[in-house]
């Protein structure tokens, strides 16, 4: 038997941070122009939150649950396909 009190409650299980939706931090949010986007993946590689994904079919998608609106994606996009628009809250 394991005593509850001998159990370390400071142990984390994988994926638990996903409960923390950081999208609420945003002031600006990225909008992808699917006409311009060539799905090169530059923004995917450069996103600190890992919240972008891209395929030839879907082009670039942003997970706004986590996007903090830093604007890196817009800056690195070689086709200037991403623009940052102000959140209206």
């Amino acid at each position, binding site marked *: 038997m394991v005593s509850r009190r001998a159990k370390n*409650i*400071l142990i*984390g*299980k*994988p*994926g*638990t*941070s*996903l*409960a*923390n*939706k*950081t999208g609420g*931090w945003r002031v600006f949010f990225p909008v992808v122009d699917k006409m311009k986007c060539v799905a090169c993946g530059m923004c995917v*590689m*450069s*996103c*600190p*939150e*890992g*919240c972008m*994904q891209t395929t030839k079919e879907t082009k670039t*998608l942003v*997970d706004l*649950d*986590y996007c*903090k*609106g*830093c*604007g*890196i994606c*817009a*800056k*690195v996009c070689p086709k200037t396909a991403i623009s*940052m628009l102000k959140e209206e809250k």
Partner: protein
Amino acid sequence: MSTVKLFNAGHTACSGCGESLAARLVMEAAGPNVIVTNSTGCLEVFTTRSPQTAWGVPWVHSLFENSGALATGIVAALKAQGKENEARVMAFGGDGSTADIGFGIISGMWERGDDVLYVCFDNEAYMNTGIQRSGLTPFMGATSTSPAGSVTGGNQKQKKNLPMIAVAHGVKYVATASVGYQKDLQNKIKKALEIRGPKYIQILVTCPLGWGSDSSLTIQLGRLAVETGLYPLFEVEEGKITNTMNVAKPKPVEEYLKLQTRFRHISKKPEEIAKIQAIADANFKKYKKDSVLF
């Protein structure tokens, strides 16, 4: 998008944080069969506010200055259990824990030749505690303990040359990387993990808060540091430079400096900028491919 990855969203790094980006890139390159030790610092704090964790690999934090020794203990434990091929061990630290408070521990780990890839996320100051100077703060960089005063302006000391100190320890693979060059960074991580024995990779990670830069410029600054010569990217294997990132047309350091408020105090002092330019110029001469360093 909510599948569990090796480094997950929901962490609480600042918007545009270069360190969180680098950590994600490192984990994606390393794959799932690694165990990570992490010093106290931004990376530890913004990934593991209990009960949440951003990590999808076995990960452990103990103190500010002991991630290297923890890694040694884990390598030993794996060996004792006959599992040394089951997982590779990586130790993570910021520049403060690596160059300053934890350096003795790291030196011991290198001297023993432990099979650990040590990754230093170098944002050039103690950002977690509010931007104090570390041994890796660049010359002239203003921090809260090396302020731009009326008599002295910014950090008066040169950045400690940790990669060369690693080379002198006989570390088998030493490399620098930048958050500005993601593929290069990931290739170096992959290469390092192929090698048994001590490895050291120092990654320049932009800190919008500490550097006073726009959060969207994280990648640009990571590239400019390399393009100006202030943060040369190279690989040293068995004491010899086997690769240096070629910069065809070096950019003047001013282009890098002017985007950061930590260098604002010298923006109108060409004689000070010239001193930094001299560091960059010397770097280009110093880190040439095929040079035997040790």
